[in-house]
């Protein structure tokens, strides 16, 4: 069974229709990449899966969006419960102005975990999973702002992993980073796939090709093509996909 499924999703910002009937499914333990030019709706679509768009005034969605077969926009769904299962990493590193330790512990604390031994072990495990432990283990009490941009982003990944989500959404996680930090993040994504279902939005075609199993190409609010990454990059069915990948527009 598919992990995430979208059926005929329409999304509106006021009168503007940002998504025009998207239907697709994502399987567990895969990396799915969303590509497409700016404004094509890929980020909007991504943010539907943890209901981040609920915060936007005057927005509206129709269609069915489900995780593990459960409608995530159903009335009885509590948004904070959902967001615990669906982690998110943002475009720019956005650590809280707290210590490194407290950043990772934040998700546990707001979800009512009080056992400090358990918190400490989760923080270590998450930092290890985000390949940051060795770099920060001696300065867990220092401010998160003392880290470099790439480290901050991995800290944000660790922060998302700490509450053991089953899905991790990544919204252009490397767009603000230098090439070396980007490589580290990509390596990390490859590792995380074993335990998590990952959806990543990216501007960078090479990145999509390197890290993802499946790729979806969005254009003007529509899903143009969705297939195995290899196929999309080597032999796309649709001409628009071909044009975008080869850099003729976008």
């Amino acid at each position, binding site marked *: 069974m598919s992990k995430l499924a979208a059926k005929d999703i329409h999304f509106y910002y006021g009168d503007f229709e940002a998504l025009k009937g998207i239907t697709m499914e994502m399987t567990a333990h895969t990396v799915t990449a969303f590509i497409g030019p700016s404004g094509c709706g890929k980020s909007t679509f991504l943010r539907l899966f943890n209901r981040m768009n609920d915060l936007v005034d005057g927005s509206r969605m129709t269609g069915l969006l489900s995780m593990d077969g459960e409608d995530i926009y159903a009335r009885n769904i509590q948004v*904070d419960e959902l967001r615990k299962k669906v982690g998110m990493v943002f475009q720019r590193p956005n650590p809280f102005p707290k210590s490194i330790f407290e950043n990772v512990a934040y998700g*546990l604390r707001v979800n009512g975990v009080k056992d400090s031994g358990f918190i400490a072990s989760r923080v270590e495990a998450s930092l290890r999973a985000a390949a940051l432990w060795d770099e920060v283990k001696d300065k867990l009490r220092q401010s998160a702002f003392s880290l470099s941009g790439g480290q901050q982003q991995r800290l944000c990944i660790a922060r998302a992993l700490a509450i*053991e989500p089953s899905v991790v959404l990544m919204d252009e996680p490397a767009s603000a980073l230098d090439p070396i930090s980007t490589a580290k993040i990509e390596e990390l994504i490859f590792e995380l796939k074993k335990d998590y279902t990952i959806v990543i939005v990216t501007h960078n075609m090479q990145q999509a090709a390197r890290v993802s199993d499946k790729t979806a190409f969005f254009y003007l609010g529509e899903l143009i093509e969705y297939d195995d990454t290899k196929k999309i990059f080597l032999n796309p069915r649709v001409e628009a996909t071909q044009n975008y990948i080869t850099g003729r527009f976008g």
Partner: protein
Amino acid sequence: MSPETKTGHVGRSKRRNQAIAFGIFRVLGFVVIAILFVIIGFIVIKGAGAISWEFLTGMPSEGGASGGIFPAIVGTLCLVAGSVLISFPIGVLSGIYINEYAHNNWVVRFIRIMNNNLSSIPSVVFGLFGMSLFVNTLEWGDSIIAGSFTLALLALPLVIRTTEEALKSIDDSFRQGSLALGATKLQTIRRVILPMAYPNIITGLILSIGRVSGETAPILFTVAASFLSHLPGSIFEPVMALPYHLYVISTSGTDIEASRTMAYGTALVLVAIVLVANLVANALRNFFGNKVKMN
């Protein structure tokens, strides 16, 4: 043990906390607004009974316990006019200088810090200063001109700040567009920038009128007379003023109870001035805001 195991219960309690906390904040928000309505409502209801044509245009009698407040209204108008005449040109010119001429160097920072400091000085200190400089050193005595200068100093930071904000909100492309056509900087400011900025500048001016008309401490020792039964003949004479009049009749006098009605009426007139200034400023902002689409 994983966090998942406890979630059902915790989720419910954290949502309950949110409901309680936000409920409290909502109530506090409305309490503050309620306080405002209580104050204004109280003044309006109590004061409405005192307002009449005779009250607004009559001379006071019995030390303010009866009669009208006409000299106080005239006095406040004189002071507002005087202080605006002084502070407005200086304030607007100085706003133009800060935003258009001075570059972001220490001069601007210095002027801005001084401006902030000036606006944070308590009004009674302005009163002391006005007394020392205008009344005593320049020997103007208790007079409209001394009061106007003192109030002008108080209004100056406000006028400068509004002008600065008004100019800042105009996109640089307009300046560059004009300069690119060969206009000088002065021409650009006069023909392009100021016409676009003046609605906002006027709005600031009106708000500062509201502010100046209610100030009491600066005029205590520079102009205000507690009781006059004639209108001022020149700018070198003292006048009555609404806020000072309210202070006097509500705290001193032989028959405070008898002068209460007068006090309510005077307070209502003062509040009305501020209300009207705010309403006019808001209306102007909306009117011009729709007409001139900036940035």
